[in-house]
Structure formats: C-alpha cells, structure tokens
C-alpha cells in the first residue's frame, strides 16, 4: 500500500461558518495504480490532490504515506517525504520562465542535493527519453504548450518519484497533444509509477485503472 486517507476533512472558516472543501474522504492507493479523479468544477479535485501531495494541510482525519503518518509529521519531515516520493504536473505547466529547458529539469535535483555530475547524467537521460534534446537550450516561452507540458512531466519524473500527481495535465492542450501525454502516462504506469490525475475528460479517465468521483468535497 502506498497511501491511505481515513476520514479526511478540510474546511475554511467564513463568517462564523465552516465551509467544507473535503468531507470524509476515505481512500486507499496501492503502488502501481493509475487513478483518475473526476467531478464538476469546484467539487474539490485540486484540493484533494494538494492534500495528497502534502502541499496543503487538512483539518481532520488520518493520512498514512508508506510507513509514515503524515498528520503527525512536522513540516520539515513532510517536505522531505514529499521531495523524495512525489512529482507534480500542472495544467499551466509552471515552468520557470528565466531558465532553459535543461535548467528547469536540473532545478529539482539541485534542491534534492544531487551532485553536479549526477545531475548532468540524469538531465541528459530525461532529455533523451522525452525526445527533447534539441530543445534543451530553449526557454519555455519558445516552446509550444504540448512541449512545455512534456518538460513539466519530465521535471516531475526526474528524481524518480513513486507517485505522480497531475492536475488536469491536458487541460491546456489540443486532443492530439493530450493523447500523447496520456500515452506517456500509461507507459510510465506500466513501468511501475503510481499516477493520480485530475481530469474532466471521460476519455482520459479511461486510461486509469480506477475512477474516483467527487461532488461537493465528498466521494461518491
């Protein structure tokens, strides 16, 4: 088992009232799964993904990740855990504008304190694998949306995470580009990477092994 959420609640206080963003979420994810989260806009998909990704806190419930109890961990340990096992992919790619493709890929490795020579090798490997060696010295603004998302995924994968979290990774792409990304995810999943994606498209959801539906913060 990779992770387990038990009775997770998340709310915000507004005018003396609790507005629930997540209500009683119970979820178990095994290693090697490919899960799609679906639901109408505002139903809490991104919120859930961020909670799983430890970017956001929750107010009640338990969260176990491998052997660790995330709800008991200090901020520092949590971010170490996150750094080691999780990679994020965004709808808006969120590449660093001032850095080249190569430098963008290298950044997470720097933060994870890899040595210079190791970094070089891993970046070269990734560029190769995604077929973007020719683009390594370009800046994000010089790439198409699909290419940017490719770099985004490459960046998420570079330090070999166990879990990829993708928030509408194909939302800004045309269907052809989207299909390519989904094929890539499938391939990664086959290699053993666990993937949780948020998507609006039934077709993309089909790539996954399991679909979770959210409505008003509740799993249905």
């Amino acid at each position, binding site marked *: 088992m990779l992770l387990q959420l038990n009775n997770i609640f998340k709310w915000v206080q507004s005018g003396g009232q609790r507005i629930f963003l997540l209500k009683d979420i119970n979820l178990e994810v095994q290693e090697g799964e490919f899960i799609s989260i679906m639901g109408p806009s505002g139903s809490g998909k991104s919120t859930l993904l961020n909670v799983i990704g430890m*970017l*956001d806190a929750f107010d009640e419930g338990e969260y176990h990740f491998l052997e660790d109890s995330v709800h008991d961990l200090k901020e520092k340990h949590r971010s170490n855990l*996150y*750094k080691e096992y999780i990679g994020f992919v965004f709808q*808006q790619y*969120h590449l660093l*504008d001032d850095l080249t493709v190569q430098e963008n890929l290298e950044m*997470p490795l720097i*933060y994870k304190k890899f040595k210079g020579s190791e970094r070089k090798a891993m970046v070269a490997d990734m560029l190769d694998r995604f077929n973007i060696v020719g683009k390594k010295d370009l800046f994000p603004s010089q790439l198409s949306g699909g290419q940017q998302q490719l770099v985004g995924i490459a*960046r998420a994968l570079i330090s070999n995470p166990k879990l990829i979290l993708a928030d509408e990774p194909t939302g800004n792409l045309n269907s052809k580009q989207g299909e390519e990304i989904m094929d890539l995810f499938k391939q990664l999943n086959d290699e053993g990477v666990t993937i949780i994606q948020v998507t609006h498209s039934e077709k993309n959801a089909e790539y996954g092994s399991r679909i979770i539906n959210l409505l008003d913060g509740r799993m249905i």
Partner: protein
Amino acid sequence: MLKNYFKIAWRNLIKNKVFTLANIIGLTSALAVALLLVMTALFELSYDQFHKNKDSVYQVYLSSQTPRGLESGTSQPVPLAPALKADVPGIKHAVRTLSDDTFATYNDKEINLDAEFVDPAFFDLFTFPVITGKAKNPLSEKSSVVLSEKSAQKVFGTVENIVGKTIALKLGKEEQLFSVSAIVQDPPSNSSNDFDIIIPFENHPEYASNIDRWDSQFHLVYVQLEEGVTPDQFEKNTQEFTSLHYQGSIENAKRDGAVANEDGLFMQFHLLPITDMHFTSFASGAAVVKRTFPYMILGIAFVIIFIVCANFINMNIALSEKRLKEIGMRKTLGAVKKQLFFQFWLESLLVFTASTILGLVLGNLLLEPFKSLFNTRATLEHVTQPKILLIFGLSIFCITLIAGGYPALLMSRLGTLRALKGKMDLGKNRLRNSLIVLQFAIAILLISGTLVLHGQIEFMRNKDLGYNKEQVISIPLNGKKDSYQVVALLRDELKGNPNILNISGADNNLGMGRDGSSMSSMMGFDYKGRGVVTNALTVDYDYAKTLDLEVVAGRTFSRDFAADSLSLVINETMAKQLGEEDPLSVRIPIDDGATTYSVIGVVKDFNFQDISRQVNPLTLFLNNDWDLYYAYVKIAPQNISSSFDAVEKAWGSIEPQAEFLGSFLDENVDRTFRREKTMATIVTSGSILGILLSCIGLFAISMLVVAQRTKEIGVRKVIGASVSSVALLLTKDFLKLVGIAFILATPIAWYFLNEWLQNYAFRVTLSPLFFIAAGLLATLIAFITVGTRTVKAASANPVKSLRTE
C-alpha cells in the same frame, strides 16, 4: 478633462497607499532635513558677504621662508599699515584692527566689553551701518568710540540719546574717558568681526611703545585697493617695500639656510579676500582656503534628496508595471502618448507637492532643536532667497518629470499588445539596480565617515596630552584685580581645603575655556648665530606641579631661588631645537646682551596647543611684570564637585564683579573639537537618515519584487525548494547590490577620510575595520529589510501562490 486626470491620479495614489505613504514620509523628512542642512551651509558660505566693499577689501598676510619651511601669518607690526598706505601705490585705505577686552564704567556699573581697536577708515572698508550718531567717519576723534546696539543696551540700558555721552574705559592699567560718537547695528551672526565697542587704534596700551617697531607683531591689517588694482599687482608692488622693511629678518633667514620661493624672495606680502577669511587656515604654512564644511553639508543634503528621489523613481517604475494592462486598455481606447505621460506626471507632482508642503512645516518645527543640536546661528532667511527658491522649484519639476515621465515613456513605447499581456521585460531592472547600488554606496560612505569621525574624536579625547586634564580647573582671570594678586588670594582662600592640591597661573589657557578666547604668543631670538623661534608662556610658581608636567631635566621655577625671573623652563622640542647636549647649559642673551636668560629645566612635551598640531617649541617664563590671564587649580580626585564649588565660592569672594568662568581642562579640550563634534553629529544624522530612507526604498522594492515573483516562488517550492533556499534566492539579489555598493564606496571613502585625517597631527589609524564595519552594517540592515519580506514570501503556501493565475 483635467478633473478626470486628478480623479484617476487620486484613485491610483489611494490604491497603492503603502507606497504613496512611504514616498510621502520619505520625501517629507528628506526635504525637511535638506532644508535645514542647506540653511546651515548657506549660512556658513555667507560669512562676511554682507560687506559692500567685499570685492576690493583684503586681509594682509605675510609669507616667510624659514629654515623650517614656509610660514604665514596675519599678525602685523604697528608701522606696517601707515607705511603701506604711504609707500605702495594702489592702496585706497590700510586699516589696523586688534581685538582685546576692556572694562567700561558708567554710573558705577562695570561691564566687560569685547573691544576692537581700529583705524578710522574701518567704517569705509566694512559695512556696519550707523543707527544714530555720526554716520560719516565716526572715529575721526581719538577720544571717540562707537558702540554696538547690544552693548549700548548693556552699558546705558537704552540706545536713545547716548551719542555724546562719556564713558570710562580701562585700557591697560589706566582708565580713560571717551565720548560715544555713534551706535551701529550689532555685527550680524555671519560676521568674522564681532565686537561690542570700537575704539581708535592709537588708544591701545601697546600702541605707543610699538609705534616704530617692525619686529613686534600683534594685530591685523586690512587694505582696500584702488579700483582696477588687483592683488597680484599689490604683491608685485610690495616686493621692494618688503625687502626694505624686513631686511634684518630676510638676512637671518638666508643665514639660517632658508630656501627662497620661486620668485627668489624670502618674504612676500599676500592678500586674502575678506570673504575667504572664515575658511582660511595657515597651519600648513601657506594660506589654505577650504570650504569643506559647508560643501560637505550641502553634499549630505543633496545625497539625502537623491536617495528619496531614487526611491520615488524606483517605486514608480515598479508600480507602473502593475498598470500595464490598464495602459494597454487605454491605448486600445485611443489614448495618446501625451495623455498617458501627463497622467503619470500629475501623480508624481501631487506626491511631491504634498511632501514639499509637509517638509516645509516639519523643517520649521525642527528649526530650534536643529539650531541648538548643530550649534549654528543660521536662519531660514538664508534659504528663502528668490534664486534658491527658483532652483528648488526647477529641481522638483525635473524630478517629477523623470519619476513620472520615465515609466510613462517606457510604456508608451511598448506595443499595445504586449502591454495588454502585462509583460514588460525591459532594461528597467538595470536602472533600478543602479539606483539601489548608488543609494547603498552613499550609505556606506556616510557610515564609514561616521565611524572614522567618531574614532578620531574618541582618539583625541583619550589621547594622553602630557598633562592632567581631569583634575585641573582653569579660570579665566576676567576681573579687575591684578592677576598675581588674584592667584595669591585664591591660594590664601583655599589653603585650608584638603581637596585643593595646587594653585598656579599662566598667561594662556589649555584647550578652549568658557571665555571662548584663544591666543598664541611667539618669540624669536638668535642663538649661536642661528634664529630660534619658540612659543612663550608666562607662568606662576607651581605650574608644572599643578598640571602634573613631567620634569625630565633640571628643575622648575622655585620660590627658593631669587633670580628665577631670568630663568627659563623649556620643553623637549625646544631643547632639540637648541641642539645642545646639555640643555641646562644654555644661556640666551636678549636685548643685545643687556640681560641673559639661562635654562634651568626641561619638561616633557605636552600638547599645549590644539591637538591638530604637532608639539612646537615652548619656553616658560616667570616674570611678575607680565600679566597672567588664567589661574589653574588642581583638586583631589575625591569630592570633585564640592571642590569645584569651593573654588567658585572663593572666586566669588575675591572677584565679586566678574563672572566665574572656570572649567575643567578636559572640558576645555573637548571644546577645541567642537567643530569635529558638530560635523560628526551632522554626518551621523545624515547617515542614519540616509540609511533609513534607503531602507524604505529597499523595502518597497522588495515587496514589489516578491509580488512579481510569487508564481516563481510557488513553483520552486513545489519542485522541492526549502523555505531558506527560496528566501536566500530572493535576498541574494539585493545583497549582491549592496556588495557592489561596498566595492564602489570603499575606495572613495578611504580617499576622502584619509585626506581629512591629514589635518590632524595626531590621528587615528585608518584601519580597514572601519570600512568592513560599515559594509557589514549596511549589509545587515539591507538583509533585515529585505529578509522580513522574502522569508514571509518563502514560507507562504505554494498552493495559494499558484492558484492566482
């Protein structure tokens, strides 16, 4: 239309109220302080500018080539002025002036007055307008005197109907009667000549005995040149005159091995414009006119204004980026460049106008504390001259134009489409960064200046001057009694007090007393065929004991030896100058061998003059015919204040009429570097203000930068950056700028401070620590300023910053 502009400007200022407020606070305080500083500087620069004939009136000084090098002095002999007028062409008037104290008696009231003994043409040279009395040539009679308004009040209690009245003045040992011929306005505070009463020169007690003596020099001479005559011509015209009247001195100089100047002369008269007098120092030998102090103050004022303007420009540019979309919209709606420009300029103008008004108010409120803190007598009149107001108005116009106009220009150049996208990747960061670098370079310059100035002051305060300054009180003998009698009476009166250790007297003070007067007395004589120059000091018995001077050879004056009035005690430098193996063997014949002095003792060198000077040769005399002007009382280290009170009480019973002006010598020494202290206060406040203002700017900029980079911060955190690494990333950029500023500022600071320290014979070593400390301080301050912002930004939840897309 205009109303519309104002409305939008107002809304914008309100919308960015943090920045608007930061700008207004910064500008207001900078303008207020600059106003006060400019006032002080202009006051200093206005010294002696009020004389109508300032362009043709000069002070005469004589440069002499001596074996010790070039020496210049303004003290002149009595016959010089009449001889110049008679023998040298091109001189309209030559006037002698001599400052001295006198006692005025009127209706049994005795008042100490600051007298100026002058030749009648004094009033033709200098502009001191007559209020009542004889307006033309008021000193034509030898027995007439002129009073200032203030002293007329003091003596007569009124300024009405005084002309023609008689007052008695004590000149030397005698009292003489004078009639008041005119009352003049008090000398303005920016006058080098300050006086209570003006007396015809011939009445000075030293006049008669020196009327033909060229070797006794004790007063100043001013000349007014004929129209069209230049100082150069005067110098040429006096060459022959000088070689005639100073023949003896010139021959001595040649004999002693002095080197002639480039014109082949040993003595040369020069003229100093009276407007330069206040700024002239003869310490290095030549007359050096330095307006460093006022220019430094102006510089600081300018620099402070620069810092706030840089803030203003920086914030405006950074803020305008936020408005790119608005600009793009306006452009699509058909706005033209001119309108955009006007909109931006108006906003700047509004901020500046508000700040100027507030700055003026604040400046006025701070006026009195400022004047006492910086001990200046400047008034706002010195600033409110049309010319200066015009310059000020123009500068505001220009600054607002740049601050408002530059971003407007950048944007109007930007294509509409790019503006709509809200991206402006121009060289604007370069301008911003250069301004920040300059600001911090200035801050580092000011901080290191502050540190070195305080270092030097502390150095001077703590330096061992060779005498006991903590336990000795010096009292100016400003009463009417004979000075030796006063010292004797003090001894008598304080005999029983175990805390009073010793009492003595001398004709000169150590440091600057509360009487505010300073003088030096020099004499020269031939010793074994060589000219020797020494400072002369007349002392009473126990002088060395009272001041804890160390006797290194022989003895000091003693009551046990009857003939000590022909004995000399010299300091080590004098002994070195005399060049004898055994200084105690020296015999000095004076007045062509009529009397012979013999050296009986040598005291260790002590700083009897300003600490800025080397210790010069000094000779102590014991001679009851020469007056003492100061009494010295040494007290025990215990019960200092009660001992001081006892001395004051004793004084009161001995000289009930005269004010007690006694003070400890360490206070006197402190008083000699009052100027340095004022300078230190100004530079310190300048640097504190400079730093504060730079920090306001830096803070605002860091806020904007952080806002601009919110998304980047979020992304970096999501891909694994820690809080500290993000904070460092953001802070690093700013610290880099401070680093560059440090590299730029340090050599400049080093150069100027080293120059300045050269003015002091005894000075603190210019250690790199001063600059490193300044750099570290600036870095630390910048770090705290920026750090508060960046750490906060770095700790923010990345989910939030990424959502704002």
